[in-house]
């Protein structure tokens, strides 16, 4: 008896030659591609309707961590710079926005964009001397710069010193707060995903894989690394500027280590190099850390257990795993 039907992987029928190119011939194939993207967008936008004010606040800070995780994953996964500068980005963004608001009394919808760009420019400037360093050395320096900033602020007693500055403008409503950060996360996510497949992204990935060959190809790797750090800093500094207006306060805890560490955890959990994964990781880890608050100090232990479990049993991360499984969906087709 001859078989008339066989199984065929869904993704095989629509992929054309290489990654990122598809030939769609039916609604179902289009739905296959669109479904996960729509799920993410709608999921992020609809969750706030199902939770109370407290958890809505948690989502806001999860959004900030998602931005940081995104910028970490972009630099580490696509440029080869392991940047632990999350705290640096949050701090500079936060201080720029807060100080502008405090001294010049500019409204927050002016201070946030200015702080995003100026903070990113400043962070990039301080990181430029370290761009020659690679791997762990760049990581260490980018990790130390926020500590450095804290001690300067304390020692010189500038910008409010250890006390910080309070009574900054806050957002008029929780909905604005929430949707501003969620929109920023989605925008940053799709923009960076787009970027890494453009010519500039290709060159950056070249720098990660073999920087010598990029130099022999007539391209200045420093110039491209500076651009990449600026882009990552833009994303991070927006988070910082937003944070200082979220709490209506700025202080040295904007340079806290959490902002450098948690994004890495989110990236490990979500899946390195997938960009979506780290965002997902941040939206899982931040609420989880809140939910575990009841355990007091034990919370950190539980948290670590979860991370270790991920590293040992699913080192590829949630997103890379799901993507692989999703691509393995099969359908019956006539022979």
């Amino acid at each position: 008896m001859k078989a008339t039907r066989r199984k065929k992987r869904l993704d095989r029928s629509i992929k054309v030659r290489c990654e990122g190119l598809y030939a769609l011939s039916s609604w179902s194939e289009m739905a296959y591609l669109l479904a996960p993207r729509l799920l993410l967008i709608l999921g992020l936008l609809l969750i706030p309707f199902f939770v109370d004010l407290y958890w809505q606040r948690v989502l806001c800070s999860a959004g900030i961590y998602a931005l940081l995780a995104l910028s970490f994953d972009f630099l580490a996964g696509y440029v080869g710079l392991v940047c632990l500068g999350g705290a640096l980005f949050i701090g500079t963004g936060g201080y720029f926005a807060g100080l502008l608001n405090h001294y010049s009394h500019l409204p927050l919808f002016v201070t946030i964009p200015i702080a995003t760009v100026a903070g990113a420019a400043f962070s990039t400037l301080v990181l430029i001397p370290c761009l020659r360093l690679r791997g762990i050395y760049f990581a260490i320096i980018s990790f130390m710069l926020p500590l450095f900033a804290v001690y300067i602020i304390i020692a010189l007693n500038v910008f409010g010193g250890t006390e910080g500055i309070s009574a900054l403008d806050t957002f008029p409503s929780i909905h604005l707060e929430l949707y501003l950060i969620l929109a920023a996360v989605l925008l940053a996510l799709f923009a960076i995903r787009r970027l890494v497949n453009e010519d500039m992204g290709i060159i950056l990935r070249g720098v990660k894989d073999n920087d010598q060959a990029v130099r022999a190809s007539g391209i200045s790797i420093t110039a491209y690394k500076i651009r990449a750090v600026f882009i990552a800093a833009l994303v991070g500094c927006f988070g910082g500027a937003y944070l200082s207006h979220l709490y209506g306060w700025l202080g040295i805890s904007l340079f806290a280590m959490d902002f450098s560490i948690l994004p890495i955890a989110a990236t490990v959990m979500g899946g390195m190099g997938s960009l979506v994964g780290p965002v997902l990781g941040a939206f899982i880890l931040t609420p989880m850390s809140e939910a575990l608050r009841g355990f007091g100090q034990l919370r950190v232990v539980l948290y670590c257990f979860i991370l270790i479990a991920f590293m040992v049993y699913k080192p590829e991360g949630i997103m890379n795993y799901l993507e692989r499984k999703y691509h393995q969906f099969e359908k019956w087709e006539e022979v």
Partner: protein
Amino acid sequence: MAESPILQVTQLSKTFGGVQAVMNVSFELARGQILGIIGPNGSGKTTLVNLISGFVKPDKGSVLFKGRNITGLQPHKIANLGLTRTFQVMRPYHSLSAFKNLIVPLNSPRVKRSAAGRLGDMDAVAIDILEEVGFERDARVPYKAAGSLPLGYLKRLELGRCMALQPELIICDEVFSGLSMSEITSLIPLIERLRMEGITLMMIEHRLRELFRLTDRVVVLTFGQKIAEGTPDEVMSNQMVKEAYLGTETKV
């Protein structure tokens, strides 16, 4: 022969710690020629390539490319002048597909300035170049991840990366090493075609027989010093070269 040489290396020297890697090496390379650089392991061939292409700064001496002093210039600036190189250890941009590997040089200022660079569709240009270096057109190979290609293709990809830059001089650091005889035989016409297109070549090689079929002149290095220069026949009959490769004769 009034034309000035495309590459002029004078008294080039470099020490690493106490090791004299390259010592007072001088030679000239005329436009359109193929120059071979040979020498036993550790004789400073790759250091010489690094010195000329700007990856290592020389302690002493100068490199003139098209009459312009390029000593100590950064590698990407030298590449933009039209001097590029291959690497001995093949490390393609493994996460990118083969043709996307060429998008990097195609975005260099040198190519952007040229007529081809302004035309647009880089992907098509990249595919054309890959076909030129021996990738089958319309087969899936150019679209495969570069990390999954066999060594023979990687060598071609490396040459393609150089050609995308529209260079005037390519320094090939052991393109034949690690290849089977048949793979080498299929690479030789490609190198001959590069020369036909007016590209000057400098080839570092261990495979002397294949090299001598291609080169006009050969420079021999031992312990960082130039011990001989001339046509392949002249060099092979040189007593010092024989000693460098085989050692000296002694009575026991």
